């Protein structure tokens, strides 16, 4: 029997993949990114549908401590921090480029 959480996850995954496919068709996203999202959400849906398999996986990872939940959370958090850092760096680069463009434009307009 499927739980509400599993149905919600599957629905949300379908929504994201559909949107990603629409972006691919409009040329806003490339095929690599689309495949990345499909695979990522496939993994998330698999974890939601088969939590026992995941428990076994993290139990092996956590070794003798046997604390599979803590291991899963720690790994998940690490990954999330990594993503946040990458996003921050990208946003920072865009901001710097924007600053340079606006500054150069201000000087150029003065000279015209």
């Amino acid at each position, binding site marked *: 029997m499927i739980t509400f959480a599993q149905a919600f996850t599957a629905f949300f995954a379908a929504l994201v993949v559909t949107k990603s496919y629409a972006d691919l068709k409009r040329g806003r996203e490339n095929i690599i990114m689309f495949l990345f999202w499909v695979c990522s959400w496939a993994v998330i849906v698999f974890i939601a549908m088969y939590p026992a398999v995941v428990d076994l996986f993290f139990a092996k990872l956590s070794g003798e401590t046997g604390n599979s939940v803590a291991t899963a959370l720690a790994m998940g958090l690490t990954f999330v921090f990594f993503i946040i850092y990458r996003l921050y760096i990208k946003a*920072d680069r865009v901001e710097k480029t924007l600053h340079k463009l606006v*500054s150069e434009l201000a*000087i150029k307009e003065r000279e015209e």
Partner: protein
Amino acid sequence: MKLAIVLPAYNEEKILRSVLESLPKKLTGIKKIYTIVTDDGSKDKTYAVAKKYATVALRHKINLGAGSATITGIRYATRKLNTDIVITMDSDGQHDPKNISALIKPIVNKKYDVVIGSRMLDSKGMPPIKIFTNKFANFITFIFSGIWASDTQTGFRAYSRKALRKIKLRTTGYEYCTEVFAELKRNNLKFIEVPVKVIYSDYSKAKGQPIANSINVLIKLINRNLTKL
């Protein structure tokens, strides 16, 4: 020597004219004085006032922050006017133009590369919360640059041409105040602090760096140092 006075301005139509008119027209050791106002995407008539009363008026299409506006003004001064000294100051009337001669004197005499106008050397009249946040900012600047100064957050500074050639700023917001000190250390530039008077009015007190922005500044400084590695 040629001097450029750079004033970043954001929504300063009410006070900008009086600030520009109060700037000195003659200074010892200076042949020509330019005033450069960078309108940082103001929503009012700041740019129109700047065009009328400043030597050069530059305009950012969008608001980027005091650091960016200052850098744009400095870029113009060094690239197009080839000035020997650049002074940066606030356009909200907080800085006393009478202090400009004290700021440029050590550079005109070729003794120093950068002069910092310190509000803390005579902090009479400064609100206690500003004294506290300035001291905290000095500590943060010391961590990032190894330089201890009495007022690291002042926008009232003078730079020689040599200093401007060597200083490479990578930040664009208020954190540039701190980043300059890191560049002074990196390039072995000589600097000195001179006391300056601050004019605290209700108008100027409402301006300036909000305290809540200090977290953002700290993160950007950490990022600058991490991406430098």
